[in-house]
Structures are given as C-alpha cells and as structure tokens.
C-alpha cells in the first residue's frame, strides 16, 4: 500500500460520514468452511465515535469527485474540498484487513458520481464482486445504488451485496428540485423499484430451487434529510409510511440537517442540527414498525408536527385519554403497547406472566416498565389513582416535562430556617 493511503482514508471517510445508515442486520450469512467472515441476523456495532454513533461498517466512498451539485451535500461539484479516489484493490484490501482485526462488521460502499452513473456503479460492483468471489468474504456488504444506473448493474450488485440503498434525501419533489436541480424523485424511485423486483424475483425462484442465488437478502433502506426544507413531520412520516408498504423496504433513516454549505442561501441558516426532532421522528418510526400505530394517529392536520417536548406515544395518549386507564391484567398486546412507558419487551413479559397470576405495580417496576410515565395510564390489581382522568392531560404533561432538580439546587417551596433580620 502506498504512503498516501492515510490521507485518502481521511478524505473519503469524512465525505461518507453524513450517511446515517450503519445497520449490519437483517441477514444471516454462514461462514463457508475455511473462509473469512459471517453475518448474523442482529448485526454488531464494533465501535462508537465521539458523537455516539455506532461504527459497524467501514463506511467509505470510492471517490468524492462528483458531477452533481446538490445543495445539501458536502461533496457537491462547486465545493472546494480535497478530493481523492480509492482503487478497487485498495478498498478490497482495507476491508479484508479491518475485518480480520474485528474492527468492522463489513463494508458500506458509497460513491460520488464520476463521468456517468453506469461508470461509477460498475467500479463499485467490481469491489464487491472481488470481495465475494476472489477473497471468498462472507461478511456484510451494504452498497449504495447510484441513481440512474442501469438495471443490469443493479442486478449484479444485488447478487453480491446484502443490502442496497438509494437515498431519497428530500421528502417532496419540488423541494428536491430546488436543492438538487439535476435530480428528481423518478431517478430515486426507479432504482428502488429495480431492487424490489430483484428481491421479489429471487424469493420466488428460491421457493422453487433452494440453490437459487439470493438477491440483497437484507433488503433496502433509504435516508431523508430533516430540517433542510420546510417539509413538516406529517409529510415526512407519510412518505415513510408509504415507503414501508413496499415489500423490500427495511429501514428509513432520518438525518438532522447539518449545514455543510453555509454559503448557499437556498438552505436555512441553522445554529444547531435539529437533533431532538430527528429523535422524535425515529420514535415515530418505531411506533409505525413495532407498535402497530397508523401514521394518521401520530400526526394529522391538527398536529402536523411532532411534539418536541414529549415522545409521540405519550403525546398520542394525552390526546386520547378515553382509551385509558388500561388494565394490564386484561388488555390485549396491542393495547399494552400503547401505554406510555411500556415497550415491546415489557408487553411480552406481561402477556406471558399473567397466565400464572395477577400482576402488581411492584412486578411491573421490576420488569422494567417506566412507572413514572405508566402510572397515569394503567390499573394493575391495585386501585388506580391519579390516572389521566383523576388529574388531567395538562397536569401529566406538566409533571413529565418538569426539569429535574439538580443536586445542590435549592428547592423552591421549602422555607429557609434562617430568617432575614
């Protein structure tokens, strides 16, 4: 390896870091005897950077040269940043050597677009193909599909990669056109459709022949930037919900907008990335995927934006006091999931334990239910007191959003013993 590899590494990692996805889950790939690597269904995070994000995959770009000029992107053509390109061989060696040291779970390969989409995609496919066929590497591979690349190349990529992704970036088309004039939603949805077709077709074939090749077994994912445009949470979550109805779509990621190109006045001037909003969107995303919520229960015309102060489930509960209190000894699983402070794990524990006897508040607490929130919404053997009906949604909201008192802060309502003279 050449001496400039360190510099290249720095440049291309910095260019790739704004991609949020780092999941290495969703597929199991057994080790073939005597070869390197395996992939497990749940994925493994190998490290965490100082911003608390996980490092599971070697998230890197093949090159950060790009022919496009998208306003939100650090690698846009008109930016004066350092540019570099890995050769496919360098990237293959890096992946293998990092993997052998247990630094990473696999490769996340992305790239700026050089010359044309097909040319770029072809080079990316060469990397993953070499990993799988020459080095017989069985670890995880996530590959970006370049918008506009031919169907044939997407097909090939799907044979070697575990997950393919195309980023939608901006939830509505007019806003996308404003920030990235060279792109449109069509260029994003078309490759998504190619991937979906590949997955469905492969599933069909594997039903007939077990040896038929798998196509992107971990499905596809996508990403939206939050806060770069005026789209509200209702628009974003509706787009998300629509995406999740597609058979192969596994994850939608949200990326709080970080102003990388402050000179561009099409972008809003932000002091701080909208991290809380991003978090709330993820919570809403979880409600959609694991808590059996519908999107119009989370946001609607009256409340088009998520409440930043409280989480979306609590917010739903406070808007619907008529659904509470829930009796944890009787309510069905779906209703248990709607209790604030009670998650999938505790709901499952409750359902299996109550066949043996009645469940009390003490047990709930031991199981890990957040009673601070849940107490207002449940009855459990003991008499309910202080529920949302005895008090009021406003009271609960106030109680739960009160700032925690720090040690050393003087309590406000306690009188001082020393009287002023």
């Amino acid at each position, binding site marked *: 390896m050449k001496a400039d590899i360190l510099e290249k*590494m720095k440049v291309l990692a910095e260019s790739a870091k704004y991609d949020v996805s780092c999941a290495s889950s969703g597929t199991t790939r057994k*080790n073939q*005897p005597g070869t*390197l690597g395996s992939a497990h269904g749940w994925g493994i995070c*190998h490290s965490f950077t100082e911003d*608390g994000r996980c490092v599971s995959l070697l998230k890197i770009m093949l090159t950060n040269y790009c022919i496009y000029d998208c306003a939100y992107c650090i690698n846009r053509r008109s930016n004066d940043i350092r540019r570099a390109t890995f050769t496919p061989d360098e990237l293959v060696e890096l992946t293998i050597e990092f993997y*052998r040291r247990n630094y990473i779970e696999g490769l996340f390969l992305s790239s700026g677009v050089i010359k044309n989409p097909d040319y770029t995609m072809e080079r990316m496919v060469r990397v993953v193909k070499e990993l799988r066929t020459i080095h017989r590497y069985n670890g995880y591979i996530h590959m970006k599909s370049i918008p506009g690349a031919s169907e044939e190349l997407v097909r090939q990529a799907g044979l070697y990669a575990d997950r393919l992704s195309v980023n939608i970036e901006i939830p509505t088309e007019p806003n996308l056109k404003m920030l990235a004039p060279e792109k449109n939603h069509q260029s994003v949805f078309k490759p998504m459709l190619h991937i979906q077709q590949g997955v469905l077709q492969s599933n069909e074939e594997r039903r007939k022949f077990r040896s038929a090749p798998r196509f992107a077994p971990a499905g596809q994912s996508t990403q939206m930037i939050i806060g770069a445009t005026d789209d509200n949470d209702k628009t974003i979550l509706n787009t998300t919900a629509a995406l999740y109805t597609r058979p192969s779509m596994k994850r939608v990621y949200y990326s709080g907008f970080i102003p990388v190109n402050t000179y561009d006045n099409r972008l809003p001037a932000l002091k701080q990335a909208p991290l809380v909003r991003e978090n709330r969107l993820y919570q809403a995303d979880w409600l959609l995927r694991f808590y059996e919520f519908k999107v119009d229960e989370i946001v609607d015309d009256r409340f088009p934006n998520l409440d930043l102060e409280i989480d979306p489930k609590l917010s739903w509960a406070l808007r619907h006091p008529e659904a509470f209190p829930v009796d944890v000894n009787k309510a069905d699983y779906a209703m248990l999931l709607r209790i604030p402070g009670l998650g999938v794990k505790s709901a499952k524990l409750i359902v*299996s334990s109550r066949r043996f006897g009645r*469940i009390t508040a003490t047990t709930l607490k031991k199981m890990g239910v957040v009673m601070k929130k849940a107490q207002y919404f449940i009855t459990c053997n003991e008499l309910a007191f202080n529920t949302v009906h005895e008090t009021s949604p406003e009271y609960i909201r106030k109680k739960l959003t009160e700032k925690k008192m720090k040690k050393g802060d003087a309590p406000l309502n306690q009188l001082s013993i020393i009287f002023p003279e």
Partner: protein
Amino acid sequence: MIVFRYDKTFDGLLTAVFDAYVRKTFPDKLLGEGELAPLFVEESYLVTTQAERADRVWKSVQKKLSKTSCNMITHVWLSEEEGSDELIFRYIRKNLDSKHSIEMNFADPDVLQLNQLAKKVGREAEHIRQFVRFQKAADDIFFAPISPIYNALPLSVEFFADRFADQKWIVYDMKRNYGYYYDLKNVTEIALDMDENMPDGKLDEKLMAEDEKLFQSLWKTYFKALTIKERINPKLQRQHMPQRFWKYLTEKQ
C-alpha cells in the same frame, strides 16, 4: 439455618440439588468448602460432587425447561456473581416442584432475576464480540486481550471460530488469565504467562507483523474522521461503549 458446602463447580451445585432432594432438607445458604459459616448454623452438610448425580439432575432440568432457560442457567453460572449459585438452586427447585415449568412466570422474583442476570451475561458476551481488537503478530497469529466483568468469553468463542476460520487467533481473558487459541482446525484453551510478556495486553512493536502498525493508524484515522463535530455526545458514546473496554481498543489509544 441449613448450610450446604460444595466445591464451587457446576457439577457440585447440581449434586447439591440431588442430595437436597434425597435428604429432604433444603439449604438456606450455599458455601464453598473453606468459606466462613454464618452465625446460628443448625446443620451443615458437605456435598461430595458426583458426576452421575449431576447428570441426572441436569437431565431432568432439560426435560422440564426449554433450551433457552437451560442456556440461561449456564449464563448465570458464568456470571460468578455472589449468590448466583443460590439463585440457580432456587430456580431449579421451583421448577422441579411445580407441575408445569414456571419459566415464563416473570412475576416470580427468582425467575425474573435469573432472566435479568442471564441477559447481563449475554450482553457481556456481546460486548466481547463487539470490542475485541486483534493485533497481528509476526508469526501470523491474531492476538486480542479482553477483561470482561463476567466470565463470558466461553460464550463468544464459537463466534470467533466461525467468523475467523481462515486465520490463527488468540482471545485472552486478562482478568481470569486464560484464553482460547485457534490453529485453523481446533480451538484449545490456553494459559499464557502474561505478566512477563505484555502486562498491558499490547503487542510489542518488534513482535508485530510488518503492516500491523499501518492498519492500526488507518483505523485510528478512520475513527477520528467519522466523527461529526456538530453532534458530539460523549455521554452517548460511553453508554454504548463502556469505558472499561477502552484500554484494549485500538482506536482509543
């Protein structure tokens, strides 16, 4: 108070269960052979470990409980926590005594506690899989030190053997002073003389493979470059990656 003394092996614990049922007296406390007895001991019984008795108990446990719960018992045993043996004893007894297994009754304090402790040990095993960092030595053996709080290394060995099937490696528990060595065919347990060779678990530069230094610095560069400065959140980092692992992490040196 009834006290049973046994040799602090898993077979010993299972033999204690057997003997308790034979004697029809159940211990309030389990002690090691040399451990100090508490005040007011009514009766003390010394368990002699017998593999055959242990086997019979384990078989009936397997008959009564699901595979997951049996695994959980071994997890809890590996936790080496104070009182974990008594917990296993109570758990096995409760299950054997009831008509149907009570493994799903999480309202029972012992069942819940056993589950929670097993989960903690499982998490530690996961941490080992996450945070082991191999250093390549000049003789092509990949070496990694680790010091987990629970004795969870045996739970992760299979994972490494599967994943790194085409390289020789050693994963070494620095705290308990034993480890596993894989020679491309089999995994064997080994004990090294660590204090003399590498007290801090780091390979000496002379012992390293030629390109090891380069890949270490590449990894460090990558790790640093990946941080988004606008989002710095050290608390979150520590939450996901406990500080006790940092001393063996290449990127944190």
